[in-house]
């Protein structure tokens, strides 16, 4: 549905997007993840034809965006970072304008009604956009993208600045739309991408550094088998005690996060389930085990690691699981300190 090859964009001497390739299948929902200034918005602006590219090719449903801009744009609904609203228009009036602008063929009133209902703005449809709150403006922006029922939706940080309830509503809406639309969305809120998107593209400094399912990314980067234990104890002696548990490969302490208790990362030998043994050992020493959890990295940690790593590290991280253990522990430690 969306095919991007060799895409580059240069602003003066600054290379904002550097040789990006990806392909999005029809009906896929993918998430763009990246720190500020990574090039997410630039890529989205190029996909929608707002900006031109310096090099490369973008095809929407087989139509090249530079050669057949009208056909390509017809298939895209775009919600930019700042919703593009005429603030001195009423909501319904604005959507009617968008309907005319996009030369939509559906019956006008019914179609606008449907869009208004979908994003839940029925109660503000006759108010001036100027007087709407940020959340409602965002939804009107969303409605604007949905007018004409385009196959592809490109949403640049659709939930930024919304309250938690609105975020959940918008997220549900995206999930619902994902059933019959191809969606690219970008976000700083990583849980959102985790919740909505099956596939994640991580972008940093204008390059794609990872393109995989959220699950795979998380698995690749975290050592699934390691455990995180919080024990009320004396740090040194417990470290020694845990090291001698059968099946334990290594133990490291993360220091104290709670008064009187210490956190330990315990890595087992391949395939061993050491949970019971760890529990027994702690109890046998007369100490209290407060928690014992899988030490998997959240997407947020994955994201931080990928965007902070340099090129050589990336190869190691994405190429080979085993070699990552050392760096991983330091990352976890850093995070624990924070």
């Amino acid at each position, binding site marked *: 549905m969306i095919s991007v090859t060799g895409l580059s964009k240069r602003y003066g001497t600054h290379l904002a997007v550097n040789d990006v390739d990806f392909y999005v299948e029809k009906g896929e929902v993918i998430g763009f993840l990246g720190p500020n200034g990574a090039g997410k918005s630039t890529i989205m602006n190029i996909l929608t034809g707002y900006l031109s590219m310096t090099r490369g090719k973008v095809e929407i449903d087989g139509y090249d965006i530079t050669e057949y801009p009208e056909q390509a744009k017809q298939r895209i609904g*775009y919600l930019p970072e700042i919703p593009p609203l005429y603030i001195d228009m009423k909501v319904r009036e604005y959507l009617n304008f968008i309907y005319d602008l996009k030369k939509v063929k559906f019956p006008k009133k019914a179609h606008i009604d449907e869009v208004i209902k979908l994003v839940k703005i029925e109660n503000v449809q006759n108010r001036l956009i100027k007087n709407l709150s940020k959340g409602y403006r965002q939804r009107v922006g969303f409605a604007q993208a949905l007018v004409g029922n385009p196959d592809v939706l490109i949403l640049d940080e659709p939930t930024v600045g919304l309250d938690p309830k609105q975020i959940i509503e918008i997220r549900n809406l995206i999930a619902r739309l994902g059933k019959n639309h191809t969606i690219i969305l970008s976000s700083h809120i990583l849980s959102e991408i985790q919740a909505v998107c099956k596939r994640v593209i991580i972008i940093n400094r204008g390059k794609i550094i990872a393109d995989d399912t959220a699950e795979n990314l998380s698995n690749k980067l975290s050592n699934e088998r390691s455990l995180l234990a919080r024990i009320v104890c004396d740090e040194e002696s417990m470290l020694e005690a845990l090291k001698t548990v059968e099946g334990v490969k290594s133990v490291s302490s993360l220091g104290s996060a709670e008064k009187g208790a210490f956190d330990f990362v315990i890595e087992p030998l391949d395939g061993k389930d050491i949970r019971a043994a760890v529990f027994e050992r702690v109890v046998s020493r007369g100490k209290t085990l407060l928690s014992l959890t899988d030490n998997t990295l959240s997407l947020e940690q994955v994201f931080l690691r990928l965007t902070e790593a340099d090129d050589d590290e990336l190869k190691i991280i994405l190429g080979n699981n085993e070699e990552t253990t050392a760096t991983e522990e330091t990352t976890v430690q850093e995070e624990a300190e924070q």
Partner: protein
Amino acid sequence: MSAVFKREFRAYFTTPIGYIVLAAFYFFLGWYFSMLYSGGSPQIEMAVMAMSIVTIFILPILTMRMMSDDRRQKVDQVLITAPIKLTSIALGKFFAAFAVFAMGFIPTVIFEIIVASKISVNVLAYIYALFGMLLLGGALISIGMFISCLSESPVVSAILTLVVNILVLYMSNFASMVNISWISKIIEKAAFINATDNFGQSVLNISDIIYFLSIIAAFLFLSVRSLEKRRWS
């Protein structure tokens, strides 16, 4: 194009801009008319031609937000990513401003009817004058639109447009100040405001009409280029 036209035209009257421009036109037209009428020689074409000064000072208000505001509010994203050509956007905006400007001359039709009911009038002279003013307005709107493409701030574009309009007004004066004859000739020719005088004297030259139309087309083209250029920078 019609979608952009409708929106822009309506926007002139949801903001004070349309009312300010029309009020200024109606005030000065009424004033001229009352002077002409009490003076006993009510030639409406003279009132129409006198509006060239008002046009020069008032049009910057009409054109200042044409493009700059869209960019400032980021609404240009919705226009440019819509499946329409940039030319349609520029034309829609141009005709919306032009329609408001043309509405400024509606009272002259009424004046002409009032006068014609009392004495015999030269209707053709009135129509020529009106035609000349509309062409002048079109050219100035086109220039103003282009200037509005260059800046994100309506105030900056209004001031720039006003300066350019005043230059246009006094261009032939500058021409006489220049000693080098060929430069002075070029300036004289470029002073398109002089071409409106012919319309006022009931002289209809095809060359004058083409002159104005080409100014309009040239600045419309530059506006579209300027929108296009923004995509590439």
